[in-house]
């Protein structure tokens, strides 16, 4: 029954919005129309993917991100602005609020346009650091485009990134070269687990400010792999925030430009595809996990059995109380959203999806193994014996990986002690037989004694009786 429901629901979901899993209203903040024209291909791609673009200028004072306390857009795309401030509608607090309300933001910066203070202070809050002095850019004297920037070396030629970690999914891979003209370096703070670089610079790159005259750069803002050109922050509520290092790279002219690395032959840039990947990820078309049914029950009630003794029939599905040392089965259904539909989630062998049975601290931590897959979901399961400890426990699946939305499912259950009639009866314990025998012998002996006593009453003696009193 539930199966069917979830299936139909998923199907419907698939039909209704063949695009981002979280709405299609995209606000593009661009200062003047001239700017907008440069990116026409980019807009076209987005619209093809079903986004309803709203172009607006930060100067416009009617612009507001919220209406009646709700988001009036699902995503924001910020193009670099010339002006220092971004106006009353786009203060850092508002943008942060937008994120806290599950809105996604794609921020593009460029070395040509200084970053507004609003933006930089927001980035500071997120522990993403831009070079202190404006309009400093990333140069690389070994990987640059010889055709366009033979002198300045400020058009970087990059290959797309390899996976971040062995267990992390790579949404931004693929071959082809990327051209990043006049990119702004970002440096990611060390502490926050929410940050992840999407595209790094080559190890020979460094960030410097062309304005200052000194020939040698000592202590540059950032060097080599530490420079992130595209970096991402996925908040705890899985809202996504991406900083795109070079807005120019999204312009039409770089989408289909020919570039020629040092000592290489010229090739077409893969910017367009990369832009698609980045936007798709940022606007939640990729790497969105969805938890379907979560259920747990006594293992004794078998899953397969149908009819009257099926799990659902007995009504013992997801009971809220178990007894210590029960055998329990826990099932959870996972699907992943990719572009326009849900697919079964696959955990790669390097990684593991784990179930915790926890009270204050985990008593069990077990791998969940896939037992079956439907059209667009995988069902993971695990069976184990409850610990010999009563209390309020919770089944917890806490799966947080870079570039995947956070999953933290908790199901609270009470684990009770043995009831007075759940212990074995006394006679079932062979060690108790001695005592039982003792009891009965005493009883019989006493009765017998009383009988004898009453039977053999002595002739009543006066004096004795007196004395007893």
């Amino acid at each position, binding site marked *: 029954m539930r199966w069917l429901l979830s299936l139909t629901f998923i199907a419907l979901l698939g039909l209704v919005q063949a695009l981002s899993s979280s709405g299609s209203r995209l606000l593009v903040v661009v200062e003047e129309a001239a700017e907008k024209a440069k990116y026409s291909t980019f807009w076209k791609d987005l619209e093809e993917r079903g986004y309803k673009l709203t172009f607006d200028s930060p100067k416009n004072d009617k612009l507001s991100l919220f209406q009646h306390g709700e988001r009036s857009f699902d995503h924001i795309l910020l193009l670099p602005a010339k002006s220092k401030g971004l106006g009353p509608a786009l203060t*850092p*607090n508002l943008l*942060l609020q937008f*994120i*806290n309300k599950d809105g996604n933001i794609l921020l593009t910066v460029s070395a040509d346009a200084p970053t507004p203070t609003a933006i*930089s*202070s927001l980035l*500071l*809050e*997120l*522990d993403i*650091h831009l070079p*202190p002095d404006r309009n400093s850019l990333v140069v690389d004297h070994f990987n640059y485009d010889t055709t366009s920037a033979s002198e300045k070396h400020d058009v970087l030629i990059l290959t797309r990134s390899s996976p*971040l*970690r062995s267990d992390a999914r790579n949404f931004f891979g693929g071959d082809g070269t990327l051209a990043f003209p006049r990119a702004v370096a970002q440096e*990611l703070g*060390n502490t*926050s*687990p*929410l940050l*992840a*670089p999407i595209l790094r610079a080559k190890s020979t790159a460094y960030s410097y400010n062309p304005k200052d005259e000194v020939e040698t750069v000592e*202590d540059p803002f950032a060097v080599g792999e*530490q420079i992130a050109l595209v970096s991402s*922050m996925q*908040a*705890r*509520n899985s*809202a996504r925030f991406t900083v795109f290092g070079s807005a120019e790279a999204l312009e039409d002219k770089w989408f289909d430009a020919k570039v020629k690395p040092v000592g290489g032959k010229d090739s077409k840039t893969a910017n367009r595809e990369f832009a698609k990947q980045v936007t798709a990820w940022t606007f939640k078309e990729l790497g969105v996990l969805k938890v379907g049914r979560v259920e747990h029950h006594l293992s004794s009630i078998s899953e397969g059995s149908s009819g009257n003794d099926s799990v659902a029939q007995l009504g013992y599905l997801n*009971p*809220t*109380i178990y007894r210590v040392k029960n055998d329990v089965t826990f099932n959870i259904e996972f699907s992943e959203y990719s572009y326009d539909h849900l697919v079964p989630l696959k955990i790669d062998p390097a990684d593991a999806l784990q179930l915790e049975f926890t*009270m*204050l601290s985990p008593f069990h931590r077990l791998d969940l193994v896939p037992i079956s897959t439907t059209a667009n979901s995988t069902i993971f399961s695990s069976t184990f014996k409850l610990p010999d400890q*009563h*209390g*309020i*426990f919770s089944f917890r699946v806490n799966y947080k990986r870079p570039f995947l939305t956070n999953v933290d499912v908790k199901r*609270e*259950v*009470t*684990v*009770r*002690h043995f*009831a*007075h*009639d759940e212990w074995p009866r006394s006679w079932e314990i062979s060690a108790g037989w001695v005592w039982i025998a003792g009891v009965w012998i005493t009883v019989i002996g006493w009765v017998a004694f009383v009988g004898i006593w009453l039977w053999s009453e002595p002739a009543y003696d006066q004096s004795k009786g007196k*004395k*007893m009193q």
Partner: protein
Amino acid sequence: MVAAALEPFLKGDTGRNTRGLLRLIILCTIAGAAVASRLFSVIRFESIIHEFDPWFNFRATKYLVQNGFYSFWDWFDDKDVLDNGDRWRLMHRELGTWHPLGRVTGGTLYPGLMVTSGIIYHILRLLSMPVDIRNICVLLAPGFSGLTAFASYLITSEMTTSPSAGLLAAAFMGITPGYISRSVAGSYDNEAIAIFLLVFTFYLWIKAVKNGSAMWGALTALFYGYMVSAWGGYVFITNLLPLHAFVLICMGRYSPRLYVSYSTWFALGTLASMQIPFVGFLPIRSSEHMSALGVFGLVQLVAFVEFVRQQVPNKQFQTLLRGLILVIFAVSMGALVLLTVSGVIAPWSGRFYSLWDTGYAKIHIPIIASVSEHQPTAWPAFFFDLNLMIWLFPAGVYMCFQQLKDEHVFVVIYAVLASYFAGVMVRLMLTLTPVVCIAAALALSSILDTYLVADNPTPKEARPNGQATGDVVKNAADYIKDSLRSTRNPVLGIYSYISKASVVGAVTTYLLLFVLHCTWVTSNAYSSPSVVLASKLPDGSQHIIDDYREAYYWLRQNTAEKAKIMSWWDYGYQIGGMADRPTLVDNNTWNNTHIATVGKAMSSREEVSYPILRQHDVDYVLIVFGGLLGYSGDDINKFLWMVRISEGIWPEEINERNYFTARGEYRVDDEATPTMRNSLMYKMSYYNYNALFPAGQAQDRVRGSKLPAEGPQLSTMEEAFTSENWIIRIYKVKDLDNVGRDHTSAVAFDKGNKKKKTAKRRGARVLRVE
């Protein structure tokens, strides 16, 4: 039972019917008075359960009534008893007290109280009188107080032949504040029935010793079992009866009667007590019960010796036997000690041990010491609770020495022990009260009997009218070899009417004064259900302060079903009962560590306590703050106990001294130590408090001190609710910051002050590895 109750009536000496009838009427009126004088709180406020523990008992009773005895027996405490369905399904919704540990309630409480009121409930239902269980719980204590009065009548009439003594005792017992303090309407606590059981068990015991009948012994055991199921104080009986028997034996008063009664009581009573899961095998494992066992053995020995002596009247043989007895006694003692040392027999439980070594609790078990009713008793408390009886009491005890029968020995022992215990713990005033009533009644009755004799003796010889008391005393004087010095020569009586009149008049005045005192004390001291506070307005009218319920109902209405509330353990039961939300700790202080955890969370800095709160997934923190109203029983005043208790577990992290100023004062104003001012409790108490006052005028009316100019800042919690008079403040624990900042900087950002751009880092910069 009924026969036992009626017996004294049928045994009137002359004109028994009229007297019997009179006594019956008087007793009924006394019972009526006893009940009536306990209804102040119901009349003033409403029919509401009082204080803390009663709330749990009430919840348990509801659970029992709803789900029947067996599921009560196996109750694993979660919450929300009002639910139907099969028994496991029921127990589940309970996400209970002691989150997340849960509590095996069925096995860790004394079911007597709940079962009693449950039975009453069902009986009334049977009689087609559907009474709300709450009202039964509220009125249980007064009802039983009536029975207690009756029981004390019975026991006193066992002590003396004077008919008035029993009635006096009943009257005293009915209205003495010492007993009312724990049995006003609505204080639905174990003591409510336990005191009745205590007195009645003693009555039965005395009956048994007097008649040496197995039946009375069995009845004693029966009620002893009931007592065990009702109150932890049963240990008092467990030790008093053996002591009585032991003393009697030492006095050479051994008799087959004693043998029969004691053996019957011990055998059956122990079995009965072991039926209570909470008691279980204690009676044979713990030292508290060893005296009973030992005396049992002794009685057997003595009986054996007596038997032998009756068979073989031989001097040497007897001495031999005596020696034998001594040896055996010594050996068994040694064995007991050995077992205790080797740990087979549990040593004395701290609670009990702290009665003897009075310094013990304060050092080793601060939780016990922290309870206000475990403090020693100052003399005004005695006078307050017992008024003139406190000085009639010794007189009565003295009179017990006149004719020192077995039962009088009992009274003497009881008097001495109970007065010691009452001196050590305020709470045990309760066990002292009955014997005080009895003794006082004895003393006063003998005065009245002497001075209320209508006609005077002629100086020559004793007149028959003097007899009523006269011959008793004389008989006593006769058959006791050395009597008391004051009762050597025979009683003559009082000659002049003036003296009679004056004495009787004086006594009457005292008695009237006593009644006034009791009424006054009851209505002023013992009749406020500490859930609802009453205060007098300037114009004398009464003003009800209902913050507790306001807050609890706020919780009930505005928080999630399973929201975990953290508060100091005093309020656990109330939150469970009224707000119906799971709590971390409650008044059943079985888990020191868990309570210490809460104490630590309360008494450390936010940065330290926030992880603790997260770990126990606490959603709300509730504190009590009296500063605005001058309500002294608030958490800041209890704070030091939280510190001490948690220091007991984490001596390295919490240190009581840091909460005192250099001059060793406990202050909350500018002088207060940083540790104090950074502690979560302090912050939560005074957060936003000076917003109420003009700048710099903030004033704490309990501590009577001016508060610092700028109040404390909270970053990890936000104020959720503050009751009308600020007595209860509830805070919501914030979730982790959405974009992974620490709370302080998040708060700073929301306040609008931007971070400075990160200046050039000095030293080697830390590189990202991934």
